[in-house]
């Protein structure tokens, strides 16, 4: 569903990605782990077609992000690092706009918005201005925005950052409820987060994939922590 090969990206003199490659199969919830500045956001931005790579290829749902960006965008739900919210709109208006701009036909739009509101637990605040909502509700609105057009692939950049433990649990349950029907790639710098939500962990460090771990076999958080520390430490020494 997601296939990335040899991605490279430089910002001026600094190298963000130095040959990232991985694949995520359909129905998987994969966690993208790495310290801050490892290249997580850059990789996700390339997958979302917001940025282009300097070298390498990336495919989402079978379409190349460079050659067929429109096909990718139709099939992708994307939650950026900072949720792209229209603060001066209500939740319902905002989601209606997101559905329209992603090409959900007018006849189905209302139902799509209702479904996203229901799914993300936004019913109580659907008529309120987003600018007046708490951080947790804003994050959920951001997630609803990524889901409203029923995409095959979801790319979520730090979906639980800045939330309290209760809210983190809700978002985690929500993401887990998507398993099977959709392919999810989410980034985080928190190990337990990935250990509890994902079936697969990709550790990225200094613009390279440093480890790839199958969590479906019931790997404990401890194993993941060891792998993470070993993978990120190796690079520091070399």
């Amino acid at each position: 569903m997601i296939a990335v090969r040899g991605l490279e990206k430089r910002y001026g003199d600094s190298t963000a990605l130095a040959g990232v490659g991985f694949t995520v199969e359909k129905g998987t919830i994969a966690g993208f782990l790495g310290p801050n500045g490892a290249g997580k956001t850059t990789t996700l931005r390339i997958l979302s077609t917001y940025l282009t790579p300097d070298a390498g290829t990336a495919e989402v749902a079978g379409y190349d992000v460079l050659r067929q960006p429109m096909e990718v965008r139709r099939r992708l739900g994307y939650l950026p690092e900072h949720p792209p919210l229209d603060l001066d709109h209500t939740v319902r208006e905002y989601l209606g706009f997101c559905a329209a701009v992603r090409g959900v036909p007018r006849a189905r739009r209302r139902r799509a918005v209702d479904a996203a509101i229901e799914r993300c637990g936004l019913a109580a605040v659907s008529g309120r201005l987003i600018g007046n909502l708490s951080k947790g509700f804003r994050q959920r609105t951001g997630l609803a925005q990524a889901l409203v057009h029923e995409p095959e692939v979801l790319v979520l950049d730090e979906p639980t950052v800045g939330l309290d433990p209760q809210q983190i649990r809700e978002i985690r349950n929500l993401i887990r409820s998507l398993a099977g029907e959709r392919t999810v790639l989410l980034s985080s710098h928190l190990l337990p987060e990935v250990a509890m939500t994902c079936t697969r962990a990709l550790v990225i460090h200094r613009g390279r994939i440093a480890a790839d771990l199958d969590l479906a076999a019931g790997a404990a958080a401890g194993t993941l922590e060891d792998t993470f520390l070993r993978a990120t430490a190796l690079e520091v020494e070399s």
Partner: protein
Amino acid sequence: MSRISALIARELRSLVYSPIAWIVWTLFLFVAGWFFFSSVYQFSAIVATYAGMGQEGVLDRLNLNDFVIAGLFQNLLVLFLFLVPALTMRGFADERRQGTDELLLTAPITPGQLVAGKYLGLLGVALVLVAGAGFYVLLITRYGDPETGPILTGLLGLTLALAALVALGFAVSSTTRSPVVAAVGAFVTFLLLFVVDWPAESTSGWLQTALHALSLPSHFDGFTRGTVSSVDVVYFLSLVALGLFAARTTIASQRWR
């Protein structure tokens, strides 16, 4: 098409909810009202003076259109210098600052559709705001008897000028992520278009022609006097095309940085 109309509806909705729009609108109407009041007052004072002196010939040459309405339109054009940057700074700079550009640029719409939708939405907002000043024109036609021709051409001129300025302001806004830079940049661009022909009288030949050709007010004045010249229309439409082309190019290239 439904995607473009969704973008337009989004701009208009922001107009209703955002306090900035209401503040800008209030100030705009207040200043426009002041211009209107002072020119009507001056006009009636002059008429009274000449009537008192029994100079009927002069009275025939004084008319509402030239004195009050043309003046009002020219003053409104100057107000656009301040009004339009306040609107277009929200154009694309604010999308970047809020992070919503990431939503727009990863949605299945082309840069052309994005620019068309945002531009038409911003222009719609600007037209709604300026339409408020139509109240003064209505007052004049209710209590005076001006010619309708120059009023209609003046309104056409104002619409064309607004379309051109919004397009240019949007283009400036697409180059930055700071709304303040976008507003100042648009204001300076507009100001240059207003003053570019100031040295024209002391120049000659092609330079003088070029300076006059670039000047925005010199293409606007005809409309307030009731003439519509194709040169003037083409001037404003060229500015629209230039602005939209620049905005589309800048936004489309953002991905490749």
